[in-house]
């Protein structure tokens, strides 16, 4: 079964993980590409039809040829010029990469697309999809032969900490720097990340679920470091978590 991520260890000793695209997103991308091929062919046919004025035979020949070139060469050409992407893959945020994280070579692009002839057996990429499901890196036969994989490109954005932690807002926990220092020491990055994610996604929760969630998170942090009672009076669980995250992620006020 695929592990959803491909982890690569660089010679510098740094590990980075690339999220793998599954068969569903890949097949959706291919459907978009199939529509593009068809659209290009229809446009081409209209232009080629003008050749029919000279010779119907030549027009027909060019039409057969163009369709073959489009069907075979569309993905190869785009994956080469767009660094592993086609129109469908761009729309769905996917990219073809070498399995070791290196640059794609032309022979890899060619062979992975030629082997669609087998991956599409018996119908609609059933064989390729089945291989993709059981492969650890979600590879179809063409990817196995070419040593490639398809990854999801993450959208990079910087979390708007000012939105979460209102500027210049009074934080009662900061009145006890020794306790906040102990809190910073005892809270792990994973725990801090959970709290930050909960605040960033608060609007996505149902009200009851939000109350329960922040109650649990606040309870967890309170068990690590006990602040004086006056800092907690009138402070809701969500506000307490907001104060904790402010202390953890913004070292200097």
């Amino acid at each position, binding site marked *: 079964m695929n592990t959803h991520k491909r982890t690569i260890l660089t010679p510098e000793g740094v590990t*980075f993980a690339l999220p793998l695209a599954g068969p569903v997103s890949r097949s959706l991308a291919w459907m978009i590409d199939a529509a593009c091929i068809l659209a290009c062919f229809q446009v081409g046919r209209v232009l080629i039809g003008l050749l029919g004025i000279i010779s119907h035979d030549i027009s027909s020949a060019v039409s057969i040829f163009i369709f073959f070139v489009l069907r075979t060469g569309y993905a190869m050409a785009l994956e080469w010029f767009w660094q592993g992407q086609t129109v469908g893959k761009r729309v769905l945020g996917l990219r073809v990469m070498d399995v070791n994280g290196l640059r794609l070579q032309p022979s890899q692009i060619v062979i992975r697309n030629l082997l669609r002839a087998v991956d599409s057996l018996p119908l609609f990429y059933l064989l390729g999809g089945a291989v993709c499901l059981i492969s650890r890196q979600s590879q179809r036969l063409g990817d*196995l032969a070419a040593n490639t994989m398809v990854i999801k490109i993450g959208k*990079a954005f910087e979390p708007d900490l000012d939105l979460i932690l209102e500027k210049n807002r009074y934080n009662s926990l900061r009145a006890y720097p020794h306790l906040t220092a102990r809190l910073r020491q005892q809270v792990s*990055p994973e725990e801090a990340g959970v709290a930050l994610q909960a605040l960033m996604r608060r609007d996505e929760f149902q009200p009851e679920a939000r109350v329960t969630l922040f109650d649990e998170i606040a309870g967890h942090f309170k068990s690590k470091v006990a602040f004086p009672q006056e800092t907690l009076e009138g402070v809701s669980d969500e506000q307490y978590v907001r104060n904790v995250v402010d202390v953890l992620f913004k070292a200097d006020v």
Partner: protein
Amino acid sequence: MIIDLKKFIATERPFWNELDRMLLLNERDPYRRLPFDEIKRLHYLYQRASSDLSKISTFSAERAINAYLESLVGRAYAMIHAGRQEAVRFSFWCWFWGTFPRTFRRRWRAFALSLAIMVAGSLFGGGAIVWDPHAKAVLMPFEHLQMDPADRVAMEESAERDRMRGAKSSFSAFLMTHNTRVSIFVLALGMTWGIGTVLLLYSNGVMLGAVAADYIRAGQGLFLTGWLLPHGAVEIPSILLAGQAGLLLAGAMIGRRSALPFGARLREVVPDVVTLISGVAVMLIWAGIVEAFFSQYHAPVLPYEVKIAFGVIELALLAAFLRLSGRSEVKPMSWRRIRGWITLGRLKH
């Protein structure tokens, strides 16, 4: 310890943006040569981003920045460790006259096996027709091959009009694309550990042998040779080369007598497989033209001796090309070398 995320991002963001810009520039033009200073700067930025990724993974579980840095480091890693010494632009003539025949000769064992499989099929097909003529319906399931050979020849030779008139080009295009698709299929089935490739080669051989036996038994060997040889001299070797490529893939899948892991075995053969199938595509363009514009004409319009001589010359040239071409290796010239020569030429004058 949890890092001050805002300060961390504010300090490092300019470096990430600079690295992103450099990567984008090089991704747009893979043949661009970097000046030495730029290489040093790229390497520094890559190492800095790697260090930042390490810090953010260890001291902060902030997913968005982590994902962004993983993507950035991944792209920089791919570029720095690509391992290509000099970007050389593809030259079709150097590839066709050099790389393609050399690849064929280097992988001759797979070709020999491909040939042996097809010959075995032919012997079976021919033998089946000789011993049991009723097998024709099974072995040659095409309407135009079910006719009695003598009747077929009489029909072709007495034809009063050119039945290919107004359709030669489209027929030629159809043949090129159809045969190329079949060749790609033969290659692709190499991923079934060669089982599919062997079956297709064998079945092609069976049909070829059956047709040959049928026509020779009917005393129409001359017609058959004149009909098939002009385009068959290139088309049949093309299928054999596609089989060669498929068997190379199969060999990598099986990995007998190889200490390399699966991925490495495939990485080793894939460039040769792609070279062979590309050569097949070029050959099938020629075969398609010959089949549509030449092979379909028979005596008295075109004497069989002329067609057979044409086919024999084609076969001899093909054999000479695959055997002899590219023996003195000519490397494709890089633009840097050409520019150097031009500069040298100008200095001399």
